[in-house]
């Protein structure tokens, strides 16, 4: 059973709306933001690592590539 009769009442929170929504907005907003940042961080680290491994592999195999071509 809803505690409010209408959406407008839910938004206004019986005159406490600004307080309630500030607290909730900051909290849920932070949680969402941190998920995005954590994913971005993970992707960034993977990307640089992969690039480095590819470069290392290229350096290690470059003499043999020369032989293949020649």
């Amino acid at each position: 059973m809803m505690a409010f009769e209408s959406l407008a009442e839910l938004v206004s929170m019986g005159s406490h709306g600004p307080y309630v929504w500030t607290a909730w907005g900051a909290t849920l907003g932070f949680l969402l933001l941190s998920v995005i940042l954590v994913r971005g961080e993970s992707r960034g680290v993977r990307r640089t690592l992969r690039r480095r491994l590819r470069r290392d592999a290229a350096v290690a195999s470059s003499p043999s590539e020369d032989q293949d071509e020649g």
Partner: protein
Amino acid sequence: MWAFFHKLGSPRWFYGIAARLSPWCWALALALILVGSVWGLAFAPADYQQGNSFRIIYVHVPAAFLAQSIFLALAASGFVFMVWKIKIADMAAAMMAPLGAAMTAIALLSGSVWGKPTWGTWWQWDARLTSMLILLFLYLGVMLIRRAFARPQSGAKAASVLAMVGVINIPIIKYSVEWWNTLHQPASFTITERPAMPVEMWMPLLIMVLGFYAFFAAFTLTRTRTEILRREGHKRWVKELFEERP
């Protein structure tokens, strides 16, 4: 048991187990926080005195719980790192500290906007509020001191020591409302006692608290995996792992 402890300390093993656990933690956190939010915002009854500003409890209390728990975890990790030199403990500590700081800030902010309509003030220098502010500074200190050294190893040690020293603030926060007279009321919701509210009010709170802990677990597992790649990227097992699944 001892073997398990050391196995857990191996980055390679942790990387694997965290990969399996973290999706479940993320899913659990999402489900619990979603259900708890809708329940707490729209379905839980208003308080007989505070009206709807009471609904701030559903973000304030979980954030304050995490703020304190994460600092305890920092101190415990610091101890494990200093005594057994288990690197994973230090990696996890470094990764979870910002979440603890953010949770402290959220507890302070939500408490402030709750205090205005109920107490009639945004802020009072009472023991609970002040000790919580000190916790925020301790978190910032732990995060900064790690980066204040040229050698990462020294920074890690300093951060561990500061966390172990700063943990004294946690019991002060918890008992501040009992030891001294404060504007902040005593705890309504603890693990040991029956909550000071009926079930239709504490059930969504319990769900939110569990959701926040699941979020903490997911956040720490995922970030620690990233940190393992960052610190151990040159190791053989990482190379092999990326060759198998590029």
